[in-house]
């Protein structure tokens, strides 16, 4: 009883007096134990460098007229980074994780210049990827060249391979797209008679001139070559002309809205021509959403497609789970690009942009996610061009894009329309 009371009374005193002692003892144990443990297991944080994540810059138009594609690119970039980090990061750098720093270039060339500058000066970057649209990428590439930070891009402009040392283009170039389109026309019939209609803009004129120049060499006859004013209200008179030309294939160098009108009008007229819609807006899920069943059988060209390899299909499945749509050309290529950067970082064993650039220039892959390109091989030439790069011919089949050309990349037979 007495003892109990004493104990209970003295409780307070015991606590106030005893606790500093106990705490210091605990602290002592924690400290010594910690140091002992650190010594025993060689705790990584003490060395300082491996915990630093490797910064990768991403320049995409996530607002403005190209926002939809830009947002898709960012989701794909994040997916790729997660895949690399979950697989253990960059092993030669002690498992360092990749860190994506996204910057919105707002579909605008001026903003692209300032954002690229800001991204490079404000962060310690190892490399950059961007910007989807060639017009934007050209500017970002200029800034990167000056800052000596490597940039890897899926943009197709041949300009990107001229006089540049830090710019890498693992996919087909614009000049190769025209050739592939012409070769695809020969799949449709032995004597392809092609009608080329193009919007009278820089994009339309340069692309169609490329087609015109290469056609004789490919044995393709162009029976109609006609510019039209972009953003017309009615495609009927134009399609009337195509009908009169006797063409059996139609190449339309157009943006989405005009192309939708053209495709619908061809159907209404009951004209039997194989339509090739080229690249860009034609090979994204939105095109099928707008055109619906009429898109079935339509052909195009792309620098990447989600059915090309098992790896591509795996990434596609994951992307589809996250966004509900298939992994489109540019975003898919972007996943491959991120793995190419990881490969370069691994071999460089350094986050220094100059060393990453040197490692990229000697990249040579033929398997894994980094090799997800038509042909399945990536190796950069002195101009930063993938020496194995070529486009893949695609066709809308059952609400999906199937690779149908060339034979080495073919995953489905060409559907005759």
């Amino acid at each position, binding site marked *: 009883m007495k003892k109990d009371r004493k104990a209970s009374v003295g409780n307070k005193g015991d606590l106030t007096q005893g606790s500093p002692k106990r705490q210091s003892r605990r602290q002592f144990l924690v400290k010594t134990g910690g140091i002992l443990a650190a010594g025993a297991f060689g705790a990584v944080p003490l060395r300082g460098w491996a915990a630093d994540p490797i910064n990768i810059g991403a320049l995409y138009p996530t607002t*403005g*007229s190209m*926002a*939809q594609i830009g947002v898709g690119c960012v989701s794909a970039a994040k997916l790729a980074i997660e895949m690399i980090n979950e697989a253990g990061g960059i092993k030669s750098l002690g498992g360092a994780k990749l860190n994506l720093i996204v910057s919105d270039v707002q579909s605008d060339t001026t903003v692209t210049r300032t954002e690229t500058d800001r991204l490079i000066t404000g962060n310690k970057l190892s490399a950059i990827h961007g910007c989807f649209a060639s017009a934007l990428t050209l500017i970002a590439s200029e800034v990167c060249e000056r800052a000596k930070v490597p940039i890897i891009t899926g943009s197709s402009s041949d300009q990107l391979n001229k006089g540049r040392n830090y710019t890498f283009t693992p996919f087909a170039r614009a000049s190769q797209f025209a050739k592939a389109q012409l070769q695809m026309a020969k799949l449709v019939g032995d004597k392809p008679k092609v009608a080329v*209609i193009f919007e*009278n803009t820089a994009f339309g004129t340069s692309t169609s001139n490329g087609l015109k120049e290469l056609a004789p060499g490919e044995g393709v006859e162009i029976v109609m070559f*006609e*510019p*039209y*004013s972009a*953003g*017309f*209200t*009615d495609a*009927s*008179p*134009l399609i*009337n*002309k195509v009908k*009169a030309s006797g063409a059996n294939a139609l190449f339309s160098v157009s943006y*989405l*809205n005009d192309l*939708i*009108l053209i495709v*619908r*009008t061809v*159907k*209404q*007229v*009951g004209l039997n021509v194989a339509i090739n819609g080229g690249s860009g807006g034609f090979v994204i899920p*939105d095109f099928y959403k*707008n*055109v*619906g069943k*009429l898109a079935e059988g339509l052909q195009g060209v792309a620098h990447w497609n989600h059915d090309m390899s098992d790896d591509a299909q795996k990434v596609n499945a994951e992307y589809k789970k996250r966004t509900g749509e298939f992994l489109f050309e540019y975003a898919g290529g972007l996943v491959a690009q991120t793995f190419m950067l990881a490969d370069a970082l691994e071999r460089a064993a350094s986050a220094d942009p100059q060393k990453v650039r040197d490692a990229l220039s000697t990249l040579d892959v033929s398997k894994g996610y980094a090799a997800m390109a038509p042909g399945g091989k990536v190796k950069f030439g002195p101009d930063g061009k993938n020496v194995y790069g070529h486009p893949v011919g695609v066709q809308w089949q059952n609400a999906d894009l199937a690779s149908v050309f060339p034979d080495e990349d073919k995953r489905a037979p060409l559907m005759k329309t």
Partner: protein
Amino acid sequence: MWETLAQAVINGLLIGGIYALVSIGVTLIFGVVKIVNFAQGEFVMIGMYISFFLANQFGIDPIVSLVVSMPVLFVIGVLIQHFLIRRVLGPNDMPQIFLTFALSLLLLNLALMLFTANYRTVHTSYSDEAFHIGGLYIPVAKLIAFVVAMGLSGALWVFLHTTDLGKAMRAASQNPDVAMLMGINPNRVFCVALGVALALAGAAGSLLMPFYSAYPFVGQTFVLMAFVAVVLGTLGNVIGALVASLMMGVAESLGIQFVGADSGLIVVFAMLLLTLAFKPTGLGGGRAR
């Protein structure tokens, strides 16, 4: 040869019907309220988005959604007249020009913000169908749009010529001072004119939806043609605007067919210049009707 020509004329007439709905609205506002509505194209755009969302959310056919888009735009028209245009009516034209131009910019950018720049299409069972007669074809969706557009234009003519309100509108357009002396309330008449004009723009939007994509800039494509038609058919002349729109549709189509696919508008503007040179008041004979 005649087949190509006939087809070109058919194509032109069909699209001309849509131009007519837009230009009648512009000419009606000019005739009655004496202002140029630069935002008319944006109201076509609003009509298209109304039809798009009704079709997308509730599966309502765009043609049927006329019964929604027209009243909604009528009310918008009345509100715009009552709260905005009424305040800038006066001897000076500049505030009116700035007002409708600002309205156009505002609506356009609002649409960009709310709906993004993406193209939206509605796919109906008749969107891709066409009647084939001999070697000619007539797209069903455009034929429906043309017939409804002509019906609405006819209804407007009947309204202007047989009802008291219509007659009051014509009176106000011919001589506003005398009309006021006769006991016509100008603001009420102006409100109705704006309402009717915007309802026509809304109708044009709904009728376009089965075969054209909606996007924020869509109105700009149509409003240019509408302005040419309004000048060609004499400012303020409803019948003139209708006839001129159909003519322009045909001229554009023939231009694309026989001059070049990027020269359709050249023929249209050559027609405008020639008309202005020889008949400066327009084909309507300079009378607002």
